[in-house]
């Protein structure tokens, strides 16, 4: 116990140097928690937005539909079974028809997915009500990414070409009714949204749909002939896999931050063991064993971590709390992160994240503090007293 007291006296006695280390370490503390919080918050937000905009409470897929195989799209359409039709009528579900098509923005050929959605639906957050008839032209919605990659603006006209149910090529001009600011790639990239009934009639597929999206928390009807139910969990699998793979990238940043902080501690520790030879000799002459001295120096290093946790709490809790309340703006960073994000990011700090980071930082600080002290184990008292390296 006395060693704890001595260690405390020593590092407080070291003054400025201690506080520089403590402050540096506390920055890492706060930065790690902040970044992980941002990261978790971002994933939560993307997940929520994707659910709201596209996944809903799960989807029924026409049996031949396979999102990874565009060739299946030709046949992936069928009239709604009665039970789904009922859900749609009661506003509990929204049918979507998906057709392959081509556009020629700026004269270049590009394949797209033409998606039909009922303008009056309120199952998904897509602002389908913007699909109002405009002067005889079919109104269309596209996302911000799609607008960027095609150079299209609100009010632009666009020719879309597709094949109808009989395999006949047909073309129509649509007008971009609006550009949807969205964070969800699933409703944006390579897609053009038009009113469902128009797509059905143009394709000669009246009453057909490729999928039916249930409203959140709607009980799915039992097995339906020719339709496959994909639960929300199933739909989120891909997103979770992406999050997992990105998490490795996130951890690298985490480790780099930790490493930089540890470098400061390690450096202090090596320096103090080098400079405080004579002090160690004195401690030995006063009757401390080498192991007690190792303990003392390790504890001194480790206490930096504890002080840093306290200092980090001092400014970190108000700071991170403030950001969690008001959100964090990430201008333009969306695409570099690979996720599209909403206007503002709200970090999520879990207790596990905070406790885990604290334990990790304390553990690593202690280990890093211990490593250079092993030299002391070979130190001869007489050499130490003369301030000599051994």
């Amino acid at each position: 116990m006395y060693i704890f007291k001595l260690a405390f006296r020593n590092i407080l006695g070291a003054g400025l140097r201690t506080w520089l280390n403590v402050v540096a370490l506390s920055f890492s503390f706060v930065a790690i928690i902040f970044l992980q919080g941002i990261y978790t918050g971002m994933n939560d937000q993307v997940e929520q937005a994707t659910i709201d905009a596209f996944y809903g409470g799960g989807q029924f897929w026409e049996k031949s539909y396979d999102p990874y195989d565009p060739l299946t799209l030709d046949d992936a359409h069928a009239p709604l079974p009665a039970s789904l039709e009922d859900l749609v009528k009661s506003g509990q579900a929204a049918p979507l028809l998906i057709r392959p098509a081509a556009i020629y923005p700026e004269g270049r050929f590009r394949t797209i997915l033409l998606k039909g959605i009922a303008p009056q639906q309120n199952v998904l957050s897509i602002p389908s009500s913007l699909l109002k008839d405009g002067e005889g032209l079919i109104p269309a919605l596209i996302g911000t990414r799609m607008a960027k990659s095609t150079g299209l603006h609100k009010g632009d006209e666009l020719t879309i070409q597709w094949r109808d149910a009989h395999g006949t090529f047909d073309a129509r001009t649509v007008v971009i009714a609006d550009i949807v600011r969205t964070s969800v790639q699933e409703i944006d990239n390579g897609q053009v949204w038009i009113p469902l009934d128009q797509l059905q009639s143009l394709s000669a597929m009246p009453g057909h749909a490729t999928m039916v999206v249930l409203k959140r928390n709607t009980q799915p009807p039992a097995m339906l002939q020719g339709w496959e139910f994909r639960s929300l969990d199933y739909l989120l699998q891909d997103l979770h896999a992406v999050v997992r793979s990105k998490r490795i990238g996130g951890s690298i940043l985490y480790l780099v931050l930790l490493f930089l902080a540890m470098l400061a501690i390690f450096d202090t520790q090596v320096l103090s063991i080098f400079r405080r030879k004579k002090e160690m000799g004195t401690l030995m002459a006063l009757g401390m064993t080498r192991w007690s001295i190792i303990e003392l120096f390790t504890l001194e290093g480790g206490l930096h971590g504890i002080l840093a946790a306290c200092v980090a709490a001092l400014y970190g809790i108000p700071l991170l709390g403030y950001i969690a309340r008001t959100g964090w703006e990430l201008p333009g960073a969306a695409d570099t992160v690979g996720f599209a994000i909403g206007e503002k990011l709200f970090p999520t700090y879990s207790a596990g994240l905070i406790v885990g980071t604290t334990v990790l930082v304390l553990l690593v600080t202690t280990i890093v503090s211990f490593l250079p002290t092993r030299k002391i184990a070979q130190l001869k008292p007489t050499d130490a007293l003369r301030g000599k390296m051994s």
Partner: protein
Amino acid sequence: MAPRTHSTTPETKNSTLIRTENLDKIYPLGLNTLKALNHVNLSISKGEFLGLVGPSGSGKTTLLNIIGSLDSPTSGSAEVLGRKIESLSHNDAARLRNKHIGFIFQTYNLLPVYTVFENVEFPLLLLGIDSSLRKIRVMDALEWVGLADRADSKPAQLSGGQSQRVAIARAIVKRPELVLADEPTANLDAENSHHIMKTMQQLNKDLATTFVFATHDEKVIGYVRRKISLVDGRIEKDEKQPRR
């Protein structure tokens, strides 16, 4: 470990505290070796006030370090307070120093971040003595050296003489049987040298603590009651001196 009494009774006054037999210390020196101590045979009794003198390089520090269990002999034997230095483990040696031996160094070796009080308290912390008793003992020790009023100062705020007196207080606060002092006056002026020698002389008288000095300072030599002269690692003379 046999319990030892800290006070010295008349019967034990002449009992042997330190005994060396054919003590050799050989250092490697390039391809050769250097004999820093050469067959040193020495016996020191409780309560002595003794000086190891001799020219630079004669082996004073080496002998003092071995007696203090900071170093071990190459051959021969050194028995201190009934323990054979050559066969002590590192931890046993630390315990011996902790409980029974006080050190005073030429450069004081105070811990700079601690106050005077905390420096003197240090050996008692190691011994696990509780705080109220520690306070009494530390203040006692500071009284002995005349620095009770500087308890809250930091070493950097003290003069050399004051620093060395703090070091003396630290060495004697645990009432050790033996205090070893290597050139305690080398960094002090004459007045301060006399002052600290008088302090130690008084402690020797009052507490019957045995003092062994390594020095070539004539002022120190004037105080010691037994003078052992070393030359090239050998004892050349062993003289008693009258008390001053």
